[in-house]
């Protein structure tokens, strides 16, 4: 009876909510649009930073144009051996699976508060922000930490098969990265547009279902194959991990480690198929749109009052369109830059090869965007995560001694923090784009044997990167809601 009343009440009130939100004739609204940390950034001379950043990226292009490529490549390939460690992939993954299962359980039975429940904090802050950055700095940690490999091996062993190659089904070649691309778009939509991605139970259902779906797909198509082309976190991590400075090679039961320059592992990449290129671009597009969606410009364009943001529910349609539009624009600009570069030097290299290879150069940009956009979330919600993980089920536990740790939100507050965070963000955006220009140059030398034509072919892409530098810093310095 109560349930029926509830459903009816929600249905009836849905219309009322819409009417209420639009009927401002009588509605009074306390201000509460917080002056926020962006207010401090608005007072900084961000225009000078943006101009300087654009110049820095342009200068990096000129420097690379006059450097002899052979020396640069051989320097870039330098590796410093670190020794070897046991390859603990199976036990680490099993532990990771156990932790994941516990987190899903916490999503259902733990606190309903998304800042007290460890599931949303782990997925959105520690995993999507923290681990992605660690991947970019170190290397492909996710290949070991993922919660599928261990259970997959156990089930395969139980079924009596050992080799990964003898999976019951084969993924046709044309499938490429399309599964990862589609699944990532679904993930990005859930993260950025769904009304309640932080709701613990809702997230537990989404994450649990995704784990199960991926697990079944891995059993069907093989772990390595699905991890590379279907499971988007693994596919993304493998790409981002190529920027990391630790290189691991299997040596029997051990892992041989070496330190290399950032991005050096990108030197050996193969051109991505169109689906792979679009997948990589979509990861950058999602972070870019996350920033863009909060700007006064985007909200103003859509007739939304940023001082009285109506909440995610009212923005589903426009933000869905916006997310796709940013992705399409990024892909179109990128493709145009590659086509223009090829035309400039009258290259005979097939466009798909050139675009598929050069798209790897956005890896450092994607990392820089990830760092800059989620730095504050990592600093503050990272603390909430440490607190929540000590008492995952809200039972008064203190597993790691952090259950009563004070969360200092002030770390990201005030003019001094705003200045420091802005400078870190600006430095990351500039560094990301300069490194992207470097990576693009090194890859271009693989496409064009003459250093002069390799450099010339990069001119349009460099212009695009300068534009994206300006856009990235504008996103971080313009007025935003919330």
């Amino acid at each position: 009876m109560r349930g029926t009343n509830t459903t009816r009440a929600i249905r009836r009130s849905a219309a009322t909510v819409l009417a209420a939100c639009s009927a401002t004739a009588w509605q009074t609204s306390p201000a509460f649009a917080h002056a926020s940390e962006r207010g401090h950034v608005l007072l900084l001379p961000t225009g000078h930073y943006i101009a300087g950043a654009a110049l820095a990226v342009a200068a990096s292009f000129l420097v690379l144009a006059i450097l002899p490529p052979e020396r640069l490549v051989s320097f870039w390939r330098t590796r410093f051996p670190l020794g070897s460690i046991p390859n603990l992939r199976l036990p680490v993954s099993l532990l990771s699976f156990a932790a994941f299962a516990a987190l899903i359980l916490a999503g259902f039975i733990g606190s309903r508060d998304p800042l007290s429940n460890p599931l949303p904090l782990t997925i959105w802050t520690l995993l999507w922000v923290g681990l992605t950055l660690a991947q970019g700095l170190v290397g492909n940690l996710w290949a070991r930490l993922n919660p599928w490999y261990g259970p997959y091996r156990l089930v395969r062993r139980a079924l009596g098969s050992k080799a990964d190659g003898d999976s019951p089904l084969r993924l046709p070649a044309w499938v490429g990265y399309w599964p990862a691309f589609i699944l990532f778009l679904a993930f990005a939509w859930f993260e950025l547009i769904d009304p309640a991605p932080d709701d613990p139970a809702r997230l537990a259902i989404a994450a649990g279902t995704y784990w199960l779906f991926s697990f079944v797909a891995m059993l069907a198509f093989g772990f390595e194959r699905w991890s590379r082309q279907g499971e988007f976190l693994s596919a993304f991590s493998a790409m981002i991990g190529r920027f990391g400075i630790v290189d691991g090679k299997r040596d029997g039961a051990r892992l041989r480690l070496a330190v290399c320059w950032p991005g050096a592992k990108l030197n050996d990449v193969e051109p991505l198929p169109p689906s792979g290129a679009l997948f990589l671009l979509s990861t950058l597009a999602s972070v870019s749109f996350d920033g863009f969606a909060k700007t006064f410009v985007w909200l103003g364009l859509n007739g939304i009052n940023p001082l009285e943001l109506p909440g995610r529910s009212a923005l589903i349609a426009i933000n869905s369109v916006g997310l796709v539009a940013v992705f399409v624009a990024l892909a179109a600009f990128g493709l145009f830059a590659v086509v223009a570069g090829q035309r400039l030097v009258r290259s005979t290299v097939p466009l798909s090869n050139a675009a598929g290879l050069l798209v790897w150069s956005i890896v450092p940009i994607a990392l820089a965007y990830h760092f800059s956009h989620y730095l504050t979330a990592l600093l503050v919600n990272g603390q909430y995560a440490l607190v929540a993980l000590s008492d995952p089920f809200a039972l008064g536990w203190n597993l790691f001694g952090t259950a009563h740790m004070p969360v200092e939100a002030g770390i990201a507050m005030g003019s001094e923090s705003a200045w420091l965070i802005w400078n870190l963000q600006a430095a990351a955006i500039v560094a990301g784009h300069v490194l992207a220009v470097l990576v693009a140059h090194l890859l271009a030398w693989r496409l064009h044997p003459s250093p002069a034509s390799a450099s010339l072919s990069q001119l349009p892409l460099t212009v695009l990167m300068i534009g994206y530098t300006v856009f990235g810093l504008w996103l971080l310095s313009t007025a935003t809601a919330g």
Partner: protein
Amino acid sequence: MTKRFFDIGKTGLSRRTALKGIAAGAGLMAAPGFVRYSQAQSSAPIKIGFQAHRTGIGAAYGRWYEKTTNAAVKLINDAGGINGRPVEIIVEDDGTDPKRGAEVVAKFASQHKTDIVFGTLFSHVVVGSAPTAGELKIPYYVVSEGYHVASGKLNRWVFQPGITDVRSQVTSVAPWVAANLGKKVTMIYPDYAFGYDHRDYFAPAIKAQGGEVVAQIPIPPTESSFTKYLPQIPADTEVLYHVMVGPGVLTFVKELGEFYGSNKPQLFGFIDSLEAVDINSPGLEFLDGSHFWEGSPRYAQANDSEAQKAYRAAVGIDDNGASTTDAKDVSTAAHMFGCWETLYVIKKAMEDSGYKGPEDRAKLVEATEALTKFKEGPEHPQGDKKFNGKLHQVFGHQNISKVEGGKLNVVHRTSIEDGLYEPEADYTTQPL
């Protein structure tokens, strides 16, 4: 450094233990030396659904609303709970989203089976959630400051007994502004509902004091630079009444300073513009000597009552209104006291009605409507108040503070009568 997230007196309270609910209540009962919930026939907790802005545009305010709520609940539980039963707070995030707000209210009623719903701040969430509270007949105590409750446009299940509404606040400051700052007022405000409240209620209030609004300058909400609007301020303006909000506020103040230099009119604003922002931030220097409305003072005052001191210590704010464990974390002091006072109003109404469970919700509504005044003290540290049961709205004193030496010093406290207006509603005529 071993700082606690909360610093509640000497006992200490982490937000997690405060939210523990049943476990905490049971623990208190078992622990020797603690107050026993002996009067109750049932020791099952009173469940309060806290509709919190944990994410979305209201998250900065939600954090302090949560801190204040937990501090008050701890004291209430330490003193024996409500009707001998411990109080359990169940938090659900509404994402500062009206549609989700309605869903959260329904979830409290049907899934968590809370006794009441409490704590909403943003007006659009209140307006979006109130119909569901009315449909499901669950008392809904908001801490929103909006005029929406007193306007009569909501329903009998919605109350605002812990914080005054914006109409009352705006009305009450007019006599002091006219008598002390000047009678020719230019209003500069954001061009949407919040700004219109100030425009519509302040203009007649200042007129009643023999003053006049010489110009009204609405600013489009998407503006982030204001220089082109400032020349519209008439030269004979004696008082500039400003209620800008959002990230552009600091730029607004800075540009105002550049526009006027040292020869400026009197400035009067609402601290809503700078709630949770350090008043000493770069760009705000021009505010020195200006005046602000404050619901409850951010800075500790020389004449603070013992109740006010105890309240500040319990919530964990220092003399500057920032967290005692994190000096950069400036609180939403002007508003968050409303959570504290609302919880004590709920307690009083539950005790008056002998509330036992959801079957007594209608009795609780009537008992709340029967309340008439609240005495200043530990339960109402902001000051004494009058409650209008027909309007479901409380009326109280307002503070006018001057920015001096990097602090806000209270220079005037309005009377409750200053903020009264002709009632427009009577919810008690609606059936329960």
